[in-house]
C-alpha cells in the first residue's frame, strides 16, 4: 500500500495501480475515452492528463503508476486547460449532430463537453468528409466521421476475441477504422463493439434509431439464454399508453461482472431479447368450461390444492406427473422438489429444456437454459419427457414453460384428467391444457440461478410482469400452504430471500458462508 494525494486528499492504494484507478477509488472521476478497464492503457485520447507535482509535463492518468507520496491534481487550471484543448480538437472533427446520434445521452464525449467544454467553436474550416454508413458487421454500422479513433474496438477484437477484423487505415487526419478486405465482424461477440464505443461511431443495427437513450429505463439482471449466467443490463421503455405503444425491451448491455463474464456478453444474449416482448401470455386461461372456474389466481390455486389433497387422501400421489425446465430459479425448483417429491412423492418428474447447441470457448455454453446446474444440485434427475410413461396412469399433470414439443404431448395428454400448464408465452400448447397460468420471465421476478460453474447469482425484477402473471415461487409457496400437507413449513416463505435461506438449511451446496 502506498499513500498518494489526489487533489490534496490522501488516498491509500495498492502499489502498481494507475492514477486513474486510484482516483476512481477515491471517488474522483478522471475523464477518459480510449482507456477501458479490460485493456492495457493506450494513451491516445489524451483526455486523462493530470498534473503531478514535480513533473514538468502533464501525465496520463491511465498509464502512470502511483508512487509513494505522489501528489496528483486532477482539476488544476493547467489540467482543465489541457482537457479543453483536447476536447476542442476532438470536436473539431467530430460531427455535431448529437440530436440524431444514437449515442446521445450516454456518450462520453458529450458528458465531457458538458463538464469541461462549453466553449465557442473557433473551427471555421471544413470537416473531413468520410463514410457515414459503413457496414462493418452483421449488426454494426460504423460512422467514420463520428469516430474519435480511441481504437477500443480494434483492441477488443485484437486482445479479447483475437479475430482482428478491424484495423486503422490511412494516417493522420485521414485515419479511419475499417474492416480488412470485406471480411466483416461476424463473430459472436460483435455487439460488444457498439457498447464499448465511447461515442456514436459504431452503432447497433438492432437498436439504431429505434428510440433515444434517455427514454429508456434500465435494470440489472441475468441472461437466461445459456447456462453461463452473464450479468446484463436490460434497457426498456415503459410504454406510451396514449399511442398504444406497449412496454418494450429495446436493448441489452453487458454488465461488469469479473467472476463470470467480465465486461462482455455474446450476441445471442444481446440480441435475443425478443422473448421478453413478443407473444406474452397475460391472463389465466381455463379451457374446461364445465369446471366453472373463474380465471382468478386464488380460485385456481384453491382448486389445484384441492386436487392435490384429494390425490393424497386417496393415496394416488404417484399418479401425478411433473414437467419442469431449467428456466426455473433455485427457489422455485426447491419448492417444487418439496411439494411434489418430498410431500407428495411424485415419481414422474421430467425436464423439458431447450435443446443443446454448440457453445464457444469463451462465454456461450452448449446448454441453453440458465439453471441446469441448479436443478441437478437440488436433487432432480434431469430426464427428458417420456411421453409413453407420461400417458400411463396419470391423473394430474403440472407442466412448466413453453419448451415442450407440442407434437409429442398431443397423444399423451388425451387420457389425463387434469392438465395444468405454467407458461410465459402464447403457444399451441395453451389449447392442450385445461388450465394455463401466466408466469413472469427471469427479468420480471426475483430469485437466484446457479450457473454452469456452480456460482449462485441472485437477481431481482427489472420489468413488471405482464397482466395476471404471478411469480412461480409465490404461487408454489401458496400452493404448499393451501394443500395443507406441511403448512408451517411453507408459511415462512414470502420472498425469494426467505426461500433461499430455507434452501441453505437443507442443501449444503446453497449454504451461504457467513
Amino acid at each position, binding site marked *: 500500500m502506498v499513500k498518494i494525494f489526489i487533489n490534496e486528499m490522501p488516498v491509500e492504494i495498492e502499489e502498481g495501480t494507475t492514477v486513474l484507478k486510484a482516483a476512481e477509488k477515491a471517488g474522483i472521476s478522471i475523464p477518459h475515452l480510449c482507456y477501458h478497464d479490460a485493456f492495457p*492503457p*493506450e*494513451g*491516445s*485520447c*489524451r*483526455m486523462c*492528463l493530470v498534473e503531478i507535482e514535480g513533473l514538468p*509535463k*502533464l501525465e*496520463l492518468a491511465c*498509464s502512470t503508476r502511483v508512487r509513494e507520496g505522489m501528489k496528483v491534481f486532477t482539476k488544476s487550471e493547467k489540467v482543465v486547460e*489541457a482537457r479543453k*484543448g*483536447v476536447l*476542442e*480538437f*476532438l470536436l*473539431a*472533427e467530430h460531427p455535431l449532430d448529437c440530436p440524431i446520434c444514437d449515442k446521445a445521452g450516454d456518450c462520453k464525449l458529450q458528458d465531457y463537453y458538458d463538464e469541461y467544454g462549453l466553449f465557442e467553436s*473557433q*473551427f471555421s*474550416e*471544413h470537416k*473531413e468528409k468520410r463514410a457515414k454508413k459503413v457496414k462493418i458487421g452483421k449488426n454494426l454500422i460504423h460512422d467514420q466521421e463520428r469516430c*474519435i*479513433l480511441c481504437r477500443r474496438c480494434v483492441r477488443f477484437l485484437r486482445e479479447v476475441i483475437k479475430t482482428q477484423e478491424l*484495423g*486503422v487505415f*490511412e*494516417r*493522420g*487526419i*485521414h*485515419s479511419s477504422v475499417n474492416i480488412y478486405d470485406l471480411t466483416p465482424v461476424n463473430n459472436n461477440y460483435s455487439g460488444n463493439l457498439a457498447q464499448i464505443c465511447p461515442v456514436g461511431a459504431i452503432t447497433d443495427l438492432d437498436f439504431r434509431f429505434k428510440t433515444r437513450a434517455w427514454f429508456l429505463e434500465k435494470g440489472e439482471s441475468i441472461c437466461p439464454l445459456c447456462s453461463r449466467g452473464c450479468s446484463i443490463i436490460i434497457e426498456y421503455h415503459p410504454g406510451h399508453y396514449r399511442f398504444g405503444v406497449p412496454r418494450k425491451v429495446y436493448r441489452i448491455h453487458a454488465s461488469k461482472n469479473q467472476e463470470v463474464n467480465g465486461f462482455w456478453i455474446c450476441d445471442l444474449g444481446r440480441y435475443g431479447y425478443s422473448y421478453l416482448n413478443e407473444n406474452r401470455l397475460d391472463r389465466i386461461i381455463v379451457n374446461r368450461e364445465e369446471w366453472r372456474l373463474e380465471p382468478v389466481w386464488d380460485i385456481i390455486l384453491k382448486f389445484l390444492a384441492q386436487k392435490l389433497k384429494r390425490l393424497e387422501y386417496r393415496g394416488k400421489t404417484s399418479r401425478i406427473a411433473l414437467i419442469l425446465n431449467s428456466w426455473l430459479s433455485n427457489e422455485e425448483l426447491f419448492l417444487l422438489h418439496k411439494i411434489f417429491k418430498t410431500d407428495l412423492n411424485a415419481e414422474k418428474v421430467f425436464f423439458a429444456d431447450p435443446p443443446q447447441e454448440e457453445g464457444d470457448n469463451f462465454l456461450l455454453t452448449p446448454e441453453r437454459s440458465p439453471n441446469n446446474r441448479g436443478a441437478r444440485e437440488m436433487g432432480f434427475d434431469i430426464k427428458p419427457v417420456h411421453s409413453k410413461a407420461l400417458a400411463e396412469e396419470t391423473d394430474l399433470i403440472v407442466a412448466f414453460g413453453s419448451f415442450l414439443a407440442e407434437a409429442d404431448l398431443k397423444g399423451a395428454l388425451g387420457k389425463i384428467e387434469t392438465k395444468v400448464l405454467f407458461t410465459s408465452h402464447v403457444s399451441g400448447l395453451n389449447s392442450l391444457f385445461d388450465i394455463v397460468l401466466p408466469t413472469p420471465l427471469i427479468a420480471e421476478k426475483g430469485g437466484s440461478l446457479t450457473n454452469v460453474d456452480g456460482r449462485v447469482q441472485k437477481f431481482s425484477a427489472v420489468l413488471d410482469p405482464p397482466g395476471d402473471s404471478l411469480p412461480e415461487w409465490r404461487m408454489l409457496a401458496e400452493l404448499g400452504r393451501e394443500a395443507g400437507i406441511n403448512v408451517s413449513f411453507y408459511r415462512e416463505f414470502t420472498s425469494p430471500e426467505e426461500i433461499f435461506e430455507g434452501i441453505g438449511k437443507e442443501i449444503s451446496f446453497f449454504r451461504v458462508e457467513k
Partner: protein
Amino acid sequence: MREKILTRYFGLENFFKIDEYLKQGGYQAVQKALQMKPDEILEEVKKANLRGRGGAGFPAGVKWGFVPKVDKPKYLCVNADEGEPGTFKDRYIISHNPHLLLEGIIITSYCVGIHSAYIYIRGEYEAVALRLEGAIAEAHEKGFLGKNILKSGFDLDVVVHRGAGAYICGEETALLESLEGKRGNPRLKPPFPASVGLFNCPTVINNVETVSNIPLVILNGADWFVGKGLPKDGGTRIFGVSGMVEKPGIYELPLGTSLKDIIFKHAGGMKKGKKLKAVIPGGMSAPVLKADEVDIKMDFDTLVEAGSMLGSAAVIVIDTGTSMLDVLKTVTKFYAHESCGQCTPCRIGTSWINKIVKRMAEGKGSKKDIDNILRLASNILGKTLCPLGDAAAMPILSIAKKFRKELEARL
C-alpha cells in the same frame, strides 16, 4: 580548428569498399574492443560524454546502462530513418563510410550483449541501403560479422530494414512497431525500449552518427574524444547546411561552433544578393532563429537556453526573399501529412493548423487566425503521445511569434 574525425576519409574513392577501409586502418577499433571487457567499453563510452545525435541528445552510455541484465534476447536498432527535413548527415555517413557504422554496431552489440542488430533505413534511401547491404556482405566475408567474430566467440547478425516512408518511424517506439511488422505507431512510454522494446525484449536504439562515433571513442580513448568537443558533450558534430548559402553541404565541426561561423565562414556565406532572414538550427522541428540571433554557440544547452534546439544539427538558412508564411505552410503541411493519427492533439491539431495556414496563404486569413494558430500549437505542445507533436508545435509557435508582423502583413 577544423579537424575532421568522422568524415576524415570521405573524399577517398571507393572508401565504402572494405579493402580501401582496411587500408586506412579500419576495423582496428573492433579488434581492440573485442579484447576489452564489455563493462570497460561502457565505462569508456560513458566517460566520452557521447550524446545521442538523433535529436534528443541523450548520453549513449547512460542509455546502454539502462538495458537490464535479463535472460532474454537483446536487440540493437540503428535508426537510419532520417526523415527530418534538412537533415542528410546519416546518408553521407552510410554511403561514404558504411564500415565505420558496422564497426560501431559490432562494438555496441558486444558491449551490451546483443546478437542481432537492425538498421532501420529510410525507404527513400535506396542506393544507400544497397551500399550498406554490400558492406555487410563484405564484412561477413571478412569475418567481422556472423558467427564467432574474429574468433572471440561473439556472434552478431546485422539486418537492414527499409522503411516505407513514414516520418513517424524515426521515432524510436514507432520504429520498433514498424520493425515488428505492425503499423508504425508510437508506443506509450514507459516502459522504455531499453527494458521492453523490440519483440518485448530490451532494445538499444541509437542514431547512425552516434554509433559511428563509437569506434573513434574506443580507438582513441574517451579523453581524446572529449577534447574534440565540449566537456559535457564529447566529439564533433556533422552540421548539414542547406538553404540560401553559397556552399550547402555537410560540415564536421566541433560542438560549440558559432552558428554565424557555420553560415558565413564554412558554408561560404549567403548566396549572391541574398540577405539572411532566419535560420532553423536543428532540422525542421527546431524553433526558428531570427537573423539577429545567429551569433550563438551550436551546442545542446546553449540552443535550448535560446529557446531552440540542436536536434539533428541540420541548419536551414532562409533569406529575405522567402516568405515566412510559405515556410509556415511547408512546415504545417509536412506535419499534417506525417502525423500518424494515433493521438488526438497531433492528429487533429496539425491538420487544423494546416487548414488555417492554407487559407491564410490564399489571402483569406485574419488576425484572429494567428492567435488561433498560437493557441492550437500550444495545445499540442507537450500533450501528445510521442515527440512528433512537440516537433510540429515548436517551429509553428516560433514562426508565428517571431514573424507575426510579417504574417499579418500577408493577410
